[in-house]
């Protein structure tokens, strides 16, 4: 059922983020990335382009990697969200983080949260990927520090099950 929302009128949304339930009033035009950073205070999700190319704002919505800058907050109503802050409770996430550090897969760290989130989803769907598949997954992300070499190695190591 479609309900007309007046300009500046707020809508109530309910979402579970990193296992914690939130109920918030938001304007329908508010981007989900801004909602996470400004309304929920989870500043680990970064905004790099706001047109869906750089991938820095990637989060998991019901387990799927999505670009939070290409979504409105109201679209997250009733969903389960995982952000980089929640990876501490995610086994694949913890392994990836250890591998990223080992392979110097991050420098400034700004793109890293989004890359970690996409990698978690990718490895959940595809536990034994080829190197080329890893590169193709990463091609949805811009990193201007590392030249990607360390990131590819880190994801590859996590698939091989070599990490702690």
């Amino acid at each position, binding site marked *: 059922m479609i309900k007309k929302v007046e300009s500046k009128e707020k809508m109530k949304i309910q979402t579970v983020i990193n296992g914690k339930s939130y109920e918030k009033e938001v304007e329908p035009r508010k981007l989900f990335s801004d909602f996470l950073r400004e309304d929920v205070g*989870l500043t680990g999700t970064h905004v790099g382009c706001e*047109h869906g190319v750089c991938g820095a704002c990637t989060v998991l919505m019901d387990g799927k990697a999505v670009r939070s800058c290409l979504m409105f907050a109201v679209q997250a109503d009733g969903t389960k969200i995982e952000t*980089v802050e929640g990876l501490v409770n995610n086994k694949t996430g913890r392994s990836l983080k250890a591998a990223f550090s080992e392979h110097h897969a991050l*420098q*400034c760290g700004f793109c890293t949260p989004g890359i970690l989130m996409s990698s978690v989803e990718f490895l959940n769907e595809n536990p034994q990927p080829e190197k080329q598949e890893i590169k193709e997954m990463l091609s949805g992300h811009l990193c201007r*520090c590392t030249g990607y070499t360390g990131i590819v190695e880190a994801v590859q190591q996590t698939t091989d099950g070599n990490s702690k």
Partner: protein
Amino acid sequence: MTDKIGHSIRRVEDARLMSGEGSYVDDLEPFANVHHAAILRSPYAHANIKKINAEQALTMEGVVEVLTGEDILEHTKPFPVGVSEPINYYSMAVDKVRFVGEPVAVVVAKDRYLAEDAVDAIKVEYEPLDAVVDIEEAMQHDAPVLHENIGTNIANQRFYDYGNSDKAFEEADMVISHKFNFPKYSATPVENYGVIADYTSSENQYTVWSNFHGPFTLHTVMSAALNVPSNQLRLMVPKDIGGSYGIKSGMFPYIVLMGVAARKAGVPVKWTEDRQENLLASSSGTDRVTWIDAAVNKDGTILGMKMKMVDNVGGYIRAPEPASLYRTHSNTLGAYKIKNLQMETVAVMTNKSPTGLIRGYGGQQLYFPLERMMQHIAKKLDMDAAELVEKNLIPSDAFPYETPSGGIYDSGNYQKALKTALDTAQYNEFRQKQKEAWKKGKYLGIGLAAIVEPSGSNMGYVTVALTPEEREQSLPKSGCAEGATVSIDPRGSVTVRISTVPSGQGHETVAAQIVSEVLNVEADKVKVIAEMDTATNPWSVASGSYSSRFAPIGSSAIYQAAQKVRNKLLRIAEHQLGEPFQHLTIKNGRAVAEEDETKQISLKRLIGTAHWNPVDLPEGMEPGLHESAFYTISAAKAPAKDDTVNGSVTYGFVADVVTVEVDPDTGEVEILDYVTVHDAGKLLNPTIANGQILGGLAHGLGGAMYEELAYDDNGQLLSGSFMDYLCPTATEVPNITIEHQETPSPLTPLGAKGLGEGNTMSAPAVIANAVTDALTPFDIMIDDLPLSPDRIWRKIQEKKRVVVKEEF
């Protein structure tokens, strides 16, 4: 444990950055009641502003204030610039706009959404003027003039004559000439600019957080523009910056603009640049036209070069520009023992966005023509390019080597590094493979580049933009100073405060490594504070991260401060043990007499004495353990009267060999292998060093093949989003082999030189050389970039007939 320097310890920065606990500027709320700014930008490249009507905007929900050029005129002065022409550059357009994206009005509102709503309601009446974007057109006498008070678009022009070029050109067997175009591209860190400004009216005090990372000479420029004493502009930088690669180290007009916004609105103001704003109007490298003449003998000896290089600095000249023209002044002839050089440098203003530093600053603009020219000369002489390069390289026994323009190359062994590169890439074998491939209609190519990588800029180099007479009017500029503080608190914890303002280079890690080695404590016990605060940090005009200066300069300041603390501890030990200072060392948490280890005292006790019991300190010693050191290198002298200057303190070397395959039907280039050999002296942390190289190489790859801020003739930006401005992704980065050679610098205490910019400088040249080589049967000349398929395809189509010589 005593050998922490030179090892690849894990980065201390990683854990917080992977937990969402980094502190980037947009994450901060350093003041209460922060409001948000949005900027109205010019849709015209060149126009007079007739009228701005913000009445409606001011009535809109949440809007606190609207600023226009009038406010800027009232509260600021033009930014000082490093050229003699009186260019009026303000943080916002005051009467006319000179590039698309130039700020025209600022709205301050309760949040960014409301601020952007109000921006849409501001009405501006423009009178459009003819625009000029092309370098050569802008220099014509009938070109539209951007700055009427100057009457020309030329902001800076100098002529230099080193050695005896006229004689060299007379004596040479031949002169080979060509013109090269280098495009405008940027660095696009994934984090855009961010500024949070506060103004305390009772103290006339500006406090501004931003992700600007030096050089802090620009603090002078910004405080002068705000028309306040420099201690009334307090600049602060959070410990995490989401990348920069140079563009956050040019002067930030937004620091001044948001300072004035906070002042007029009476609330703290936060502004975060969006990506469109970043591509339109932040900063970029310069496009450059270079004309080169080379005086060459038939045997391949190059006797001299004449170069005219013209940089496009955009609508205004913004400090530290025109430094792009001069950053490589001392190493204009690269790795070659050429003795004679004539040079003309010109900076022109056009209706493109203003420029500044990007990784490689000036190096890629220099080496693309120079290294392309080497291949071109080899071809004209029917020599192999590797042979020509090798023949002209500076020999290993010539160091320290003084270049004609005054550079002093501190150390190196270029032949050895080149040989490593050629052997690793299997140069000769590839030549065989190539001949076979050509016969089969497959176009394989191999290219090389041999470049000198300057690091640790001399603050004086920028002043060669002025004539010797102009320079004499003011204090000479020299040096490359950096400061650091090392302290030990009463419980024995070690803290290091640095002013190198890292943006991902791992300075916290390497600083901890250095201090842990000097004080013989574990690196993970050393806390490094990387936040910058001009009110409290030990900093110099040269502080910041640019010109790859951490390894030669920043690390040396840290090392020196740690040595001061160590010496103080050992002086206390001398006093307490009665053993001479020079016999003492630090081991396992104790000061120990090297010859008689029974004489020892715990560091804990020494530290305790300094803090809790200063009366037992040696006569005259100050209490506490808190030592700052400032470090510079005397080789960074002011430019001489003859215009020679040593623009950098250390000079590394990079030899690249790249193999490609080109599809002649589509013009598509595939890089098969990229071999790069680096000599950056002693490596402080090899993993971090390789990370810097890989990042710089990917940026160089972008410049070579993908990235361009393209404009149409009216000055409209054509690549204003990441759908049009293409950055390399993981699938574009080729196989890369890195080899190191470590010839220590004799000038730095740890023997280190800078690195990380080398391949940004070399990649466009080496890839273009490889592509040209692959297309030898078509006899094409690559003299412009990027190497997009359409550009290469057109060059192939221009050749009517393919001639494959039997002897290939």
